[in-house]
């Protein structure tokens, strides 16, 4: 199962669909890998192994990523798991009862959540070293930072635990850990993906929490973006669908660039 440590989510899903791999063995491999790297890299805040095993046993549904193991960043609620926000204040949080539409979209895509990934406190810092927990280390060189704030997500993907993982970005928190860990990190426009914030966070006067993933391949980020795009009344931007290559220039398109 070593190839699962580098295969992207699209390829993994295709092999599950074709019967070449069983979702149970893919998820079991991810759990085994998570357990193997956790003591050194500290990528998980909480695990969802029992539910993941049950889900991988089927029925898998017809989502494009059916059977692919996944992680949710611990700044967002996922039903059945506590949300600790990287903070000691929330160390005793109860499992969430509800989750936002973005999480429903990940479930509908067939992704199998195996746990929640680490973040610095409330995602405020670009490195993942909360005071109350061991630091999340970089799989390429454990003496270095994974970056942050989606540090657990990036370290887990780079370490071969899961092929793709939920991540969020307000000031670099997808892009920085993706760069530190040698991954692809796309920060979509805010509101591009289905609503993710709940409670007081959803009512903040300015929202700059961009939601997406860190991944091993551009096509995974593109396909998952299409899968989780806000549609209809939820959509703040016209949906773009699956992007598979450079688009022809729209008539009114004009771009500027600078390097200073």
């Amino acid at each position, binding site marked *: 199962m070593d190839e699962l440590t580098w295969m992207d989510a699209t390829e993994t899903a295709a092999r599950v669909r074709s019967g070449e791999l069983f979702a149970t063995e893919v998820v079991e491999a991810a759990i085994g890998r998570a357990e193997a790297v956790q003591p050194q890299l500290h990528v998980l805040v909480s695990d969802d192994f029992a539910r993941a095993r049950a889900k991988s046993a089927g029925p898998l549904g017809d989502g494009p990523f059916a059977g692919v193991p996944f992680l949710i960043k611990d700044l967002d609620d996922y039903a059945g798991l506590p949300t600790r*926000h990287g*903070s*000691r*204040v929330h160390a005793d949080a109860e499992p969430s009862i509800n989750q936002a539409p973005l999480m429903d979209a990940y479930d509908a895509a067939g992704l199998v959540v195996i746990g929640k990934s680490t973040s610095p*406190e*409330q995602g*405020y*810092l670009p490195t993942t070293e*909360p*005071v109350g927990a061991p630091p999340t280390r970089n799989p390429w060189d454990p003496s270095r930072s994974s970056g942050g704030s989606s540090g657990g997500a990036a370290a887990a993907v780079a370490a071969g635990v899961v092929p793709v993982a939920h991540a969020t970005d*307000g*000031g670099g928190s997808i892009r920085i850990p993706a760069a530190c860990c040698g991954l692809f990190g796309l920060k979509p426009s805010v509101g591009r993906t289905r609503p993710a914030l709940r409670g*007081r966070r959803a009512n*903040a006067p*300015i929202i*700059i929490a961009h939601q997406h993933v860190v991944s091993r391949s551009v096509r995974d980020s593109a396909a998952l973006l299409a899968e989780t795009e806000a549609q209809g009344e939820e959509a703040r931007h016209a949906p773009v669908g699956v992007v598979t290559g*450079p*688009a*022809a*220039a729209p008539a009114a*398109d*004009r*771009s*500027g*660039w*600078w*390097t*200073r």
Partner: protein
Amino acid sequence: MTGGRPDPEVVAAVEGAAALLAELGHQVEPTRWPVDGMQFGRDFGAYWASGAAADFAAATERLGRAPTDAEVEPFSLAMASRTARCRRGRWRP
């Protein structure tokens, strides 16, 4: 954004992307960062700190008392207190 020069690799990547877009028919031109980078940095810092202040207030409500520095990290506490010093849209750092 604040006047620093990027590394040569970054310059090459940006120029390469601009050239590719131009080749694909996009209208691409050199320009300047359209906002005051230093001001943007201050505004972003103010916004970021206000999130910590809201978290601090929520934690206070949840605990029935202000969280201590054994519960909230020094960086978050510093940002929350920075926001508390903000009055009428002006910073008094």
